[in-house]
């Protein structure tokens, strides 16, 4: 009988359980972030404890984390949906800006509606603008074969500049000191969860989106067509799916979700549209979808993790002078380490390095 070494069993376990890999990625990214904090002259432990305190220290901190998680979840769900169609939506940031723009236009200029209708209309128009914006890239990808990574990314710059132009120009109140629109009326504001909290009712939309993703992927024809097109375009065509239409619709839907994220952020959190509307939620959401392996059950913890980073990092910066740009680097590290651990066939590594039946020397010779 062969005895398996402990490290062999650990590697074999790693090979079988893919959900462990994101955790390893986060652990490695934390080490990298800790090293950066340490070389910049701050003790990593105190930095992390301040960060955790800022993210989950009291009910206001938790509310802030959930408020930051909300746009990440909505946009992340959209990006994950696109991934199931083998498409990339790197344009979440621009779509969030357009979502905020659509929402603020309805909130400010459509008046006399009862509050629920006003809110619903503002969110719907925000979603529409985000969706139309993403659909441009979708149509170009589907019918002109233009790489959507490039188009969606470049369209971020266009969308943000369009919004900044409007906010500095026609949408700016004449007496305003800063470049931002007027505050939206009460009837369009998404209510806060408790008095003085950062968290607003938009979080329910985010939860709804996650459930929606689960249902769409598992139970609907559209979800089936998306995954089929993602796997193989020609097979899907032969089985009666119109892959081009599916691709365009998928990217558009992805944009609608990002647009809703922007609308929720505007109606619930910011309540007026500034020139620097989103601090990069659209980019964070890419990391959320990737870390969550594009699955609803993975996206939720990933969004909470990055939402917590977003909530806690400013506290860390104020208390210890650790710059928030560290968050961006940490996200990059986390995703990078996850894809590398996912790409390695750990069973094969285990068999090669720690094979139970052969001696180590023999293995060396064979390789």
């Amino acid at each position, binding site marked *: 009988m062969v005895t398996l070494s402990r490290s062999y069993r650990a590697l074999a376990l790693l090979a079988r359980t893919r959900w462990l890999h994101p955790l390893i990625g986060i652990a490695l990214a934390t080490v990298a972030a800790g090293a950066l904090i340490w070389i910049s002259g701050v003790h990593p432990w105190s930095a992390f404890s301040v960060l955790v305190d800022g993210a989950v220290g009291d009910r206001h901190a938790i509310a802030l984390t959930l408020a930051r998680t909300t746009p990440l979840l909505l946009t992340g769900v959209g990006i994950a949906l696109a991934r199931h169609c083998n498409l990339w939506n790197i344009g979440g940031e621009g779509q969030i800006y357009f979502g905020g723009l659509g929402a603020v236009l309805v909130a400010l200029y459509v008046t006399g509606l009862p509050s629920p209708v006003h809110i619903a209309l503002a969110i719907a128009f925000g979603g529409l603008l985000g969706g139309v914006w993403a659909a441009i890239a979708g149509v170009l990808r589907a019918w002109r074969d233009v790489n959507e990574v490039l188009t969606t990314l470049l369209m971020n710059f266009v969308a943000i500049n369009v919004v900044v132009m409007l906010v500095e120009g026609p949408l700016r109140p004449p007496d305003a000191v800063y470049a931002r629109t007027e505050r939206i009326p009460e009837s369009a504001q998404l209510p806060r969860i408790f008095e003085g909290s950062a968290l607003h009712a938009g979080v329910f939309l985010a939860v709804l989106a996650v459930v929606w993703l689960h249902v769409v992927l598992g139970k609907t024809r559209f979800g089936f067509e998306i995954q089929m097109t993602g796997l193989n375009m020609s097979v899907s065509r032969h089985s009666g799916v119109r892959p081009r239409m599916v691709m365009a619709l998928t990217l558009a839907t992805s944009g609608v979700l990002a647009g809703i994220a922007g609308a929720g952020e505007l109606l619930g959190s910011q309540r007026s549209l500034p020139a620097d509307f989103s601090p990069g939620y659209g980019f964070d959401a890419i*990391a959320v979808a990737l870390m969550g392996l594009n699955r609803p059950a993975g996206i939720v913890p990933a969004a909470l993790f990055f939402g917590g980073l977003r909530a806690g990092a400013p506290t860390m910066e104020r208390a210890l002078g650790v710059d928030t740009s560290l968050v961006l680097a940490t996200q990059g590290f986390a995703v990078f380490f996850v894809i590398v651990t996912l790409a390695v066939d750990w069973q094969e590594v285990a068999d090669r390095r720690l094979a139970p039946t052969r001696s180590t020397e023999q293995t060396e010779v064979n390789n």
Partner: protein
Amino acid sequence: MRPPESTRPAALARLGTVLSLAFLTEWLVATFRLSMPVFLAGLGEAYSERAGVLNINLEGMMLCGAFTSVLTALSTGSPWLGLIGGLLGGMALALVHAIAVITFKADQIISGISLNFVALGLTAFLSRWILGADRTAYAPSFERIRVPVLVDLPVIGPALFNQPVLLYVALVGLPASIWALSKTHFGLAVSAVGENPAAAESSGINVPAIRYKAVLICGAFAGFGGAFLSLGTLRFFIDGMTGGRGFIALAACIFGRWHPGGVFAAAILFGGADALQRRVQVLDIGINFHILQVVPHILTILVLAGVVAKRSPPAALGIPYVRESR
């Protein structure tokens, strides 16, 4: 923001200067200078993609190069050492990408995207920590080369014969790359590896080694592009100063059919658009600055939409190479 009606005739008069020779001359000078970062990064991408490796992290490598070149130039006092620092900065990130996608066969797009985050965050973080208050200090700059007589040629004289020396160094990349990619053993191996890695391997080419070299060359060129942007233009580093140029360079590589000459032409096109919008900004003829600013981005999308369908990328682009087990 439209100017009030009364200034309209003045704006139109300024528009008239668009047609003047002085304007054309200035435009051409700026076109060359603004094209170089896109050209260099796009040229690097041509090496990498020809070998079958997609480098979405062109933007990140440019940022690394922009940062390390300024850092090196400030600490050594030499712009030339700064340039070398920039090349190494780009190569460092390229090496990480290469390890992930060649050795570990990770997804090339995801690795590229995540490394863009890393570069953006890391350069912002490190520039605050290392440079601190020196962040806006000017790095030593390159001298200008002025070719007597030729510089007095109308319109093209100043653009071609009175530019910073770094621009001429960058231009050497064009003939050198045409030669390297089409005439040398290495260049042919790169194409073989990108089109059919299995066949290349059976004819004795070490596929992973060629891919590593191509990706590192790409990193060096992208780092050069970043250095051109920081050291050669602004002379200091700002967070995210590449502003999407890495992605425009990716488009230039596709638009230029993965050929150095094509990449150069595409880069001149984008640089020309960028230079034109900057000149128009200065003229202040009532077109909004924010709209002008994204002209190169819109042009890139239009160009891709117009031509890309007729392009065929290297057959093995984006696919990790797994050796057949024997």
